[in-house]
């Protein structure tokens, strides 16, 4: 079975690449959405809450099917990779938004006032006082989301991507070596996720020691 290891490596690269892109966009979408909610921007606020409900209450698999099989029916063709990244970002954006929002909301308004009282502008208070504290509160949830999203990539094979799941299923289909193929799959995900978990734990500890967010 080990002669197929390179297939897993290729697949892991794909998973990681698409996952990283999806996570990056998730963070951007999440940050923008959380700011819309924080500042209670009219109209946009409504759109964001509809998006969040939609995103949280539909499985990624369904979102991918919609993108890959549904959209072409109205003439919109998106590549498998495109579908994977869009789907993951659509899903992750709402989770990241909640993580950022809980951090922002945890900072008392009196911190804003004491910043303003020494003459800082609103933007400066956000940058030097609110964001650093909010971020340190959000970090554990953000890290959990990153791990969650990488695990979610296991449905990418549904849109014809040769990711880890796909390779494993393929090998099982070809050689009936189910046990080995599955073992390799588990190991591959562990190798991907363990370092990220450890890095997350380290980051959380570091932020706490630095005295962030009290």
């Amino acid at each position, binding site marked *: 079975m080990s002669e197929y290891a390179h297939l897993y490596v290729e697949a892991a690269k794909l998973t990681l690449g698409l996952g990283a892109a999806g996570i990056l966009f998730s963070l951007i979408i999440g940050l923008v959405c959380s700011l819309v909610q924080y500042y209670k921007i009219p109209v946009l606020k409504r759109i964001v809450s509809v998006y969040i409900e939609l995103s949280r209450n539909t499985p990624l698999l369904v979102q991918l099917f919609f993108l890959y099989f549904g959209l072409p029916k109205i003439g919109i063709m998106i590549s498998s990779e495109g579908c994977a990244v869009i789907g993951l970002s659509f899903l992750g954006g709402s989770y990241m938004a909640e993580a950022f929002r809980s951090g922002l909301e945890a900072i008392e308004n009196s911190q804003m006032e004491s910043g303003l*009282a*020494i003459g*800082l502008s609103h933007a400066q208070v956000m940058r030097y*006082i609110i964001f650093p504290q909010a971020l340190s509160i959000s970090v554990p949830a953000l890290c959990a989301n990153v791990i969650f999203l990488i695990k979610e990539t296991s449905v990418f094979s549904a849109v014809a991507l040769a990711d880890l799941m796909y390779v494993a299923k393929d090998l099982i289909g070809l050689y009936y070596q189910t046990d080995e193929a599955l073992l390799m799959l588990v190991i591959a995900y562990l190798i991907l996720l363990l370092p990220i978990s450890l890095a997350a734990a380290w980051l959380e500890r570091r932020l706490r020691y*630095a*005295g*962030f*967010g009290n």
Partner: protein
Amino acid sequence: MEKNEKLLEIHHLRKDYGNGPVLKDVSLDVHKGEVLVLIGPSGCGKSTFLRCMNGLESIQSGEILLDGQVISGDKTKWSEVRQKIGMVFQSYELFPHMTVIDNVLLGPLKVQKRNRQEAEEEAKKLLERVGLLDKKDVYPRQLSGGQKQRVAIVRALIMKPEIMLFDEVTAALDPEMVREVLDVMLELAKGGSTMVIVTHEMQFARAVADQVVFLDGGEIVEMDAPEAFFNCPKTKRAQKFLNTFTFESKDE
């Protein structure tokens, strides 16, 4: 410094949060070098009054002037005005993610764009003055309440404000820490600082005030020198308020 030069003027201020006026037609002048102590029952609008003075609350009508310039208009550059009006809060409001010295330096570096070395020298001097130089590199959570409040005072002072506002800065402190904070304020008063102080410490008010302002029901009910005010308050309301601070001995 001329003592009867008006530094801060409040004319016919009215403040309403939306369910009836909290401050109705309040007028007050603060002169250079003067220490005003603002007292009154809880909920009478003392904090609101201070917060109007530095624009943390908008006002419904009236006018506020600093150095003869109207600051209550729409075009006020609050960042500039607030450098001249320092404020210290009851709950300290230090920035918990920054060390003591970084708390103090944030304003000078980011607002006034001062040279770091020069600002740091001054920050150290001020911390030394309030007895906290050895704490300059610790985080706020490692400080006692009294120490936090002294840092908060230094953080306001380093901006070189023309006037300082203190909102019940000892109300959240354990009794044994009240004194160390009040001493710092007394020191400032002796040094000629202009201050408006909200407090429930009547002994301190008597010692530090040039004028005592008694606020009740959203208006200034009585204003007098401390001796006159505390010894023979003119209004019923002030008498009643001051009585809540005295106890009759049980033998009498």
